[in-house]
């Protein structure tokens, strides 16, 4: 089963999803993410493994990238969620995948994306009192040295 097949199956169930031109990733509206994750984990597709969560700062929006894997079908699926940069909030996937716990904390720590209903959304790599979100493109810190 190819990524395009996964997209078609998700599209059938959730008509609001779309496909990214360049990467063929499935773009899911932020309010639909838990439902799509539940469907991915379910019997039809059996994506039992959430391999990785990361984010990309595209200046006007933050792209969340979820990489799912199915050991049964030997198949990978990349799901993206576009979030507005000033209100970066999305439902946590910890109730479906326990690997999401630390992945989401890392994205929160470095990008400032708030994961709603996460059991312990605290910074994980930076100190708890750290200011700002280091991997955002507009991040500045007085200790940063400008490149000559």
């Amino acid at each position, binding site marked *: 089963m190819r990524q395009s097949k996964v997209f078609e199956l998700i599209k059938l169930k959730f008509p609001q999803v779309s496909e990214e031109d*360049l*990467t063929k990733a499935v773009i899911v509206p932020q309010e639909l993410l838990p439902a799509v994750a539940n469907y991915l984990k379910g019997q039809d597709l059996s994506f039992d493994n959430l391999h990785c969560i990361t984010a990309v700062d595209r200046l006007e929006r933050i792209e969340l990238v979820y990489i799912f894997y199915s050991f049964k079908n030997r198949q990978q699926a990349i799901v993206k969620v576009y979030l507005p940069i000033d209100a970066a909030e999305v439902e946590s996937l910890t109730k479906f995948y326990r690997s999401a716990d*630390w992945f989401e904390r890392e994205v929160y720590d470095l990008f400032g994306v708030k994961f709603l209903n996460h059991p312990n959304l605290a910074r994980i790599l930076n100190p708890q009192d750290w200011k700002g979100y280091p991997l955002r493109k507009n991040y500045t810190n007085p200790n940063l040295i400008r490149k000559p």
Partner: protein
Amino acid sequence: MKMSNMHSEQLCVNMGPQHPSTHGVLYLDLRLDGEEVVDCITHIGYLHRSMEKIAENRTYTQFIPFTDRLDYVASMNNNLAYVLAVEKLLNLDVPERAKYIRVIVAELNRIASHLLAIGTFAQDLGAFATPLFYCFREREKVIEIFDEVCGNRLTYNYMRIGGVQFDLPEGIDRRIKDFIKYMRPKINDYEGLLTNNPIFLERTKNIGILSKETAINYSITGPNLRASGVQWDLRKDEPYLVYDKFEFAIPTGKNGDMWDRYRVRMDELSQSLKIIEQAIAGIPEAQATVKAGRMIKPAAGEVYFRAESPRGELGFYIVSDGSVNPYRLKIRAPSFSNLAVLRELVKGVKVADVVGILGSLDILMGEIDR
């Protein structure tokens, strides 16, 4: 009164950040009821060097030495996963000889890394110094080979986008063959020392059991996943380089306890030797590197590539905007997920086993904190 009904006041024990058995700067906040662990809160980040932010200000080639410092006991595998990810982004094919060289050095490094894992694991269980020193003696041989190949002992910086830094030096195949001949009986020595040692069995059997479902749900990869009974190895299931040309088995465990994790690593030692032997025999005489240019400018796009490092699946997610620097580079480190499961594993075990379970997971803080 039965012992299990007795409870004492909850005790908080700080393990780390500076502790000889945490394999780096890791801080475990242990909550104990007598000898039993009630909860374990893991604090990481003491080695955070913001590699991903640094990558955004470096060219693709300049970032290779940084990958050495991720998993610093298996630098070759980190180099390899990174350059393969960039090559996938560039759609660049490397010469056949480079692929063979990469396989040889990656597998040698896997042996060195597993030796360290086994040695420190035995040390964590209280087998003071002997197994560790034996393992280090053999690891030293691998490091000497690497010293000859690329001039460095630990941070190799050997892989290049388009091939490797130098071709293999003259006479190294003889040396690697000698090492294989030397290493095989040594594995039997370890088996004699540890595998069926009653004390070792007592400490490792049926402790720290990681079930198949939990392992997959926590996104555990590598030997830890295979020890839980999932037959999954990227070298076999999504072959890269020339791994599909070699014959080797994927060792798996049954119960997913500490002993199985040790067993899988021991078996992987001999499988790696087998791969190296075949690679040395089949290596073609040809040019080892193609010129990819000093300034690499991939077309705008995104790529995710993962490779089997000794600790699990090391993935690189690279976003390119068409310039000389990556727009975003995410490192998906295997130890990060492997450590996340620790809290689950240590609940209800005795405090002395925490160190053993941690050692059996074979984590490395360099790639967790990045």
